[in-house]
């Protein structure tokens, strides 16, 4: 087994003349939180989409535990242990909170091809789903329709669904976006504990959260990684400050 749970090698993706991903090589090691930061439109979500499937890179490779998964579908990568959360919540809004998490357990166990037995009557899966909801603090609203959740609760639900997959690596696109101070603090604490379960590739705009959580930070600007290093390295880097952080951090 490779040291890297997740790795990209020389990833490139252009939209017409726009180089959204320009020779990106990053990695994710066991137990770490690797944050990707960068200005709006830098290509962070585009990078995530290529890692998780759904967007094919023009060049380069994606590896999971040393295995080339570049040509695998999104489903296959999920089954191989990738747990993703979206920048814009992708949830079944008409369904209840519990049903959304149950969906995760179905995928994880490959049990979606059962046609008769009631989905929410399977003890193990129900327990697993409720456990995931408890971890993110949504157990009290489990019977509520997802559309009625606040923005912050939807972010938490995204994470809960990813938890049910028991992935070997998490890939999260701005889990703190729109959470508010209190919510951000809670999510930060939660992710801090989560890294022991599986490492996290974390795209995030909230610098306080990133500096509090990250073991490593990569800075993405115009599709290129301009710097990778520890929190201290990145804070100290003049290039990064000029290109992105703007005001002294």
């Amino acid at each position, binding site marked *: 087994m490779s040291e890297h749970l997740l790795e990209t090698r020389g990833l490139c993706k252009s939209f017409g003349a726009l180089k959204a991903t320009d020779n990106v090589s990053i990695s994710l090691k066991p137990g770490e939180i690797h944050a990707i930061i960068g200005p709006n439109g830098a290509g962070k979500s585009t990078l995530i989409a290529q890692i998780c499937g759904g967007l094919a890179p023009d060049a380069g490779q994606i590896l999971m535990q040393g295995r080339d998964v570049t040509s695998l579908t999104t489903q296959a990568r999920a089954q191989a242990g990738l747990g993703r959360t979206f920048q814009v919540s992708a949830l079944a809004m008409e*369904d209840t909170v519990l049903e959304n998490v149950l969906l995760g357990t179905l*995928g994880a166990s490959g049990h979606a091809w*059962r046609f008769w037995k009631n989905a929410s009557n399977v003890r193990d899966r129900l327990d697993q789903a409720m456990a995931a909801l408890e971890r993110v603090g949504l157990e009290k609203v489990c019977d509520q329709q997802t559309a009625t959740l606040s923005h912050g609760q939807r972010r938490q639900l995204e994470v809960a669904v990813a938890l049910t997959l028991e992935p070997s690596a998490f890939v999260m696109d701005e889990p703190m976006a729109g959470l508010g101070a209190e919510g951000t603090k809670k999510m930060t604490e939660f992710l801090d504990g989560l890294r022991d379960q599986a490492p996290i590739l974390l795209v995030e705009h909230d610098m306080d959260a990133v500096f509090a959580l990250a073991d490593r930070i990569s800075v993405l600007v115009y599709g290129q990684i301009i710097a990778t290093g520890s929190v201290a390295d990145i804070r100290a880097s003049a290039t990064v400050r000029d290109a992105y952080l703007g005001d002294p951090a």
Partner: protein
Amino acid sequence: MIPERFITFAVPAGLFIIAILAFWTDEPFTITLTTRVAILGLAAVGLNIALGIGGLVSLGHAAFFGLGGYAMGILAYHAQTYSPLTLGPLVIEGTKSMPVIWIVAVVTSALAALAIGVLSLRTSGVYFIMITLAFGQMLYYFSVSWSAYGGEDGLSIYLRNEFPGINTLVPIQFFGLCFVLLCLALVLQARLRGSSFGLALNAARQAPARVETVGLNPVRLKLLAFVISGAITGLAGALYADLNRFVSPSMFSWHLSGELIVLIIIGGVGRLVGPVIGAALFVALEHWLGGLTEYWHIGLGAILLGIVLFSRGGVIGFLTGKAGPNV
């Protein structure tokens, strides 16, 4: 507001009671109307699985209705003319047995739905609607030109097919048969909707990206829903042909596909007995307004317009005060 569970039981029960009353008061024509409701309802229940749960707006479900109809027509035609059907080296005897005809209808429509689904599900939205329409029309024109089975004129079957232990020529008995099949389809849909498959399919309609990221294939889920859907609509086609003792290319026409969608919208998209309510209103209007004027579809159009404008969730949405099945 009326609980949906009550409506779910009351609607089939109501249909059954009307048929029984018509039997007691000796009005066979009313029984025939209720049979029509049961059969059109069954066809639309089939479509509702694809459309209501899977979000697949198929404008080609007449393809399956027609295939079911012609499965019955062809088998019965060879039985009544005592001429076997020869397909190359294969020689098939015709049959008057409903169960056999139903199995052939279901299998044929399921296979057709598999083929059409595999090709159509590469697209979505308007393209999906158009490609399913195109397949339906292909079969329509094929049936028009298929002179061995009546071509444009269709095919008459002199005697209704047989079901063991039942005299299918007696209207109330044939109604009972159709009604039981309708109820079985409703039970199947209810179980399906609550099952793991239903949960995943329902999510695939709302958020396909989510379904993929938990490791499931939304297209495969929808394809299976389309096949089940087509099979049920095909069964309804076989019954419809038996009700009229006649099949013709009109069973393949896109009007019928459109009408099935209208039935669902009137009753309530994705609602279990929505298609039955839609079918009942459709048949009632066709009968009463159709007796007054040739343009009775205008009345249907007005109802449809009223429902789309004022009640999201169709008649059931209006009665329950809930716009969607999951709200």
